[in-house]
């Protein structure tokens, strides 16, 4: 789970979804999560998941980095479903719920810088929470780099490789100990900086405006459509027809992959 990869994509990427307003993307993600909560049909869930992957492919988002993150919860979802002693279809439903919700979150954070997401949280939390969130974000990169340096130094000096798990574990633990001390000293220096710069509560994030209103509408529209689909199929006795959205989702996935690949090929050809 490399947070720096996520951050790089969010801050340096330039897809259509990057240009949409953070608020729209948050709303769309929220609607997808609501869909996950409401639905009890694995085919509906699968259709939404396929559509999300297809959209990511079409927008040329970094699927190679996104998919492992989105699929990771599937492991635990499977363990939970197995432990909860349900049949295979319900297991599939649980796994698909996990993956779909994760996909929505991953699409959000790969296309929206964390501070923009946190800015929304800041509006509804006490000042100290919002500020700590932003300082966490900023400290993450300082500590990640420091940890990387420390780990490398410890491994070089201890002569450790990944094929020696115990020694590797000891080396990493030593690096973490050094990182802890550094982190604590960093917090003291942060105190100095905040004092020097006149901090009085309320680290503010300038709002990011949308430069693609059409994408805002499309994102929210998709979320609403998914939720409506889930509600309809839950409220009405239509068990035999959920293959239709399932198929539509699969087609959307295929289309997204083809469009995304064509665009990449065209770009390479142009170069």
């Amino acid at each position, binding site marked *: 789970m490399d947070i720096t990869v996520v*951050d*790089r994509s969010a*801050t*340096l990427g330039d897809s259509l979804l990057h240009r949409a307003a953070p608020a729209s993307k948050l709303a769309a993600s929220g609607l997808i999560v609501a869909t996950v909560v409401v639905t009890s049909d694995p085919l509906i869930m699968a259709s939404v998941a396929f559509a999300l992957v297809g959209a990511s492919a079409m927008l040329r988002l970094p699927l190679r980095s996104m998919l492992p993150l989105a699929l990771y919860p599937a492991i635990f979802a499977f363990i939970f479903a197995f432990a909860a002693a349900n049949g295979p279809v319900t297991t599939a439903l649980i796994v698909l719920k996990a993956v779909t919700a994760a996909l929505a979150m991953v699409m959000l954070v790969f296309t929206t*810088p*964390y*501070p923009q997401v946190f800015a929304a949280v800041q509006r509804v939390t006490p000042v100290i929470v919002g500020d700590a969130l*932003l*300082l966490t*974000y*900023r400290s993450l*990169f*300082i500590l990640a780099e420091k940890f990387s340096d420390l780990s490398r130094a410890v491994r070089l000096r201890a002569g450790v490789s990944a094929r020696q798990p115990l020694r590797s574990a000891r080396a990493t633990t030593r690096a973490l100990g050094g990182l802890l001390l550094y982190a604590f000293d*960093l917090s003291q*220096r*942060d105190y*100095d*900086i*905040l*004092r*020097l*710069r*006149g*901090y*009085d509560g*309320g*680290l*503010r*994030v*300038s709002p990011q405006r949308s430069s693609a209103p059409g994408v805002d509408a499309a994102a929210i529209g998709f979320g609403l459509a998914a939720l409506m689909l889930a509600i309809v199929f839950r409220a009405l006795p239509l068990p035999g027809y959920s293959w239709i959205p399932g198929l539509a989702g699969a087609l959307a996935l295929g289309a997204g992959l083809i469009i995304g690949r064509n665009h990449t090929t065209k770009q390479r050809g142009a170069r």
Partner: protein
Amino acid sequence: MTNPSHNHVRCLNAGAEEIVRISCVRHTYEDGTMVHLCGLDFVAHRGERVAVLGPNGSGKTTMLFHVLGLMRPEEGSVSVFGVRPADEWPRIRRWVGVVLQNVDEQLLAPTVFDDVAFSPRQYGLPEPEAASKAHAALEMLDIAHLATRVPHNLSGGEKRKVALAGALAMEPELLVLDEPFEGLDPVSRTSLLDLLGRLSAERGMTTILSTHDIDTVPEFADYAYVLAPGGRIAVSGTPEEIFSSADVLARGNIKPPVLAELFARLRDRDASAPSPALSVPEAVEAILKWRGAGD
């Protein structure tokens, strides 16, 4: 050396307001290391550009931290704008801009613009005014194009400029810089020196900076203090006074700038060689004149 009557710059500033004075301050770190900033008083007047030189561990950063009120002296006194900064920092911090050595840790906000606008916002300025000050500071440092960038993705030099813009956003009267030239390429270093000179001349801003970069001192400083290991203020004077005297250099244990060393060696070989010139144009003139006189 420290007699103001020998110091023409200090004579000019003799009537100028004293902004900072440090008198024989002692500080002991947690590990027992003691820094005793004694020997001479450290003084900075309004509009003056003061350099603090010294080897690693001589107490340069300790001195600056006392000016910033981050450390309270165990002995001696520190005065900034007439108050004790450790006790009354909130009264004066609006007038003090800071750039510390590790700029990574100084940048707090998620974007460059938000970081430069941090202090104006924290001081309660309305958003349009805070934005205006931030934009002005970014323009001054020629980094307006970085406004929407995320600080941790910037290069070291860019981060340093962002930190400086943040320090200048509130138009401070005193600017304190800890190793500001580290990580800057020569062009950026020159433009920073020009900027500091302009701010001093146009706004009367007082600047105190610590540096290892001896070659920048003649270009930047009106006055310099040299710290010896342990914090003793060994020597003070204008750059010309400090770098032209072998005795002073030896006392301060400092290596002279390249030009000063050049002229010192010329004098060793030929007593008629000119006095040290600390800028390239002056050096060219002096050498040509000397060569002409020798023909």
